[in-house]
């Protein structure tokens, strides 16, 4: 009798809990849908207003252009293939710049972690270089490396390397000393300490500098292209500005926004894969 009753209770009770959970999911999903809908609406309104403002002459079309014109420009560049070399150059420079920046920055951090003496010697130099507006060095890089790919990548590196070094070196120093003690009690040397404790423990920090460096690399590349101006999206912006074709300038900006976002999302995705097993 007792058993039958408790069984009878268990059925509806678990269904009741299930229902609570479903409701929770429903509310959550509704919330996400509302956010997405508002985001799309906002975008449509902004583009619509811009289009209207251009067509009705509220703003100077020569300077502000309007969306259908910008869209047409992008479509034309895509169809006649003129866009691709510029896009490829810029994306290539950015990818090389941010990967190399992260790599060189991390290696530099390893070097100064390895030698506290070197770390102390280099400290004031790093402070000076870090405080400097690195893009101001652009003209010097162009003179040194020629007006092209190398100068642009070096400009990008000048922006990304030191920040990476500082962040990664800092994360090396924040590793719990007891992990180092574990390695040392087994007779591990400095190399063991680094390879088995410091580096894996700092891995998330290194990966997250990738994310920061994507944004920095875009700054470096576009500025580099402004200065060198032969090919690339930055060149298109400068060119559009010089011939007073602001539709081209805005079209380039739209493309940069799309590609940079895509690249950032890619890095976020890679980060998630690399850090999957951790907590």
């Amino acid at each position, binding site marked *: 009798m007792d058993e039958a009753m408790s069984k009878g209770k268990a059925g509806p009770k678990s269904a009741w809990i299930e229902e609570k959970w479903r409701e929770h999911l429903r509310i959550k999903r509704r919330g996400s849908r509302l956010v997405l809908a508002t985001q799309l609406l906002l975008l449509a309104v902004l583009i619509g207003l811009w289009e209207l403002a251009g067509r009705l002459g509220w703003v100077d079309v020569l300077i502000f252009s309007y969306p259908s014109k910008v869209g047409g420009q992008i479509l034309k560049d895509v169809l006649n293939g003129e866009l691709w070399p510029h896009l490829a150059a810029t994306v290539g420079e950015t990818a090389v710049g941010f990967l190399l920046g992260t790599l060189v920055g991390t290696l530099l951090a390893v070097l100064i972690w390895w030698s506290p003496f070197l770390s102390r010697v280099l400290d004031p130099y790093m402070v000076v270089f870090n405080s400097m507006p690195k893009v101001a060095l652009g003209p010097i890089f162009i003179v040194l490396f020629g007006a092209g790919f190398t100068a642009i990548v070096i400009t990008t590196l000048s922006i990304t390397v030191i920040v990476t070094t500082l962040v990664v070196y800092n994360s090396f120093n924040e590793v*719990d000393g*007891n992990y180092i003690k574990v390695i040392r009690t087994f*007779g591990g040397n400095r190399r*063991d300490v680094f390879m088995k404790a410091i580096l894996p*423990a700092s891995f998330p920090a290194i990966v997250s500098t990738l994310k920061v460096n994507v944004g920095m690399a875009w700054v470096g590349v576009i500025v580099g292209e402004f200065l060198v101006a032969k090919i690339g999206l930055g060149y298109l912006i400068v060119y559009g500005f010089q011939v007073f074709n602001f539709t081209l300038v805005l079209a380039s900006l739209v493309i940069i926004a799309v590609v940079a976002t895509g690249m950032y999302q890619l890095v976020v995705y890679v980060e998630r894969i690399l850090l999957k097993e951790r907590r």
Partner: protein
Amino acid sequence: MSQVPVVELKDLDLVYVTDREAVLALEGMNLSVMPGEFISLVGPSGCGKTTLLSVIAGLFPPSRGEVLLHGKPVAGPSPEVGYMLQQDYLFPWRTILSNALLGLELTGRLSEDSQAFVLELLEGMGLGGTADRYPHQLSGGMRQRVALVRTLATNPDLLLLDEPFSALDYQTKLQLEDLVVDTLRQRGKTGILVTHDLSEAIAVSDRVIVLAARPGRIRSTYVIPETIRGAQPFYAREEAGFNELFHEIWRDLESLEGKGE
């Protein structure tokens, strides 16, 4: 012949040097620990218990005097000495097996045989089937057992235990005390335990050594009677004489704090 002490301290002094000052942390320590013996170090905070373990482990050299391991001066960390910390400090990015193999990896003794030995150890401590899991998937007690396996994997004959049970809940702590003492006895290992818990010290040890603080030095030594010593730690607490001994050492410690502070 077999009576060469595993650890011998001879007039050990240790000075801590910082930019601000040099502090005498340990003074005039003399101590011998025989093979298979289990001793505990108790004392107020600042008596240099952990420092002493680090010196015996060879993590830093004594300022004066000698530390001998099997009659030979300690030159640095050696695989003959195992060290267990207050918390497990398992590496979160490594699996349980990979964590347990760390010592073998670092001493260059990783082989199929040694790996089979470690798997057996894991099995023996009730950790079978966890080899491919990650530390965060295990409870605190299980993690500390993995840390014990990691320490035993290199087959050290001296174990230095730096409050390894202090971060555990009471029940887990009692279970782990039994496990550690049984394991050490079975394998004929020598143990030095640092603890804050006086009843733990009496229950697990052959000798309890009371340290005084500032500078750290040996104040008194209590030999635990055979009846208490023979029992498993859990039951040792119920043996006749346990409470009397507890109170005797307790008074000793209290008089220390009264004087020191």
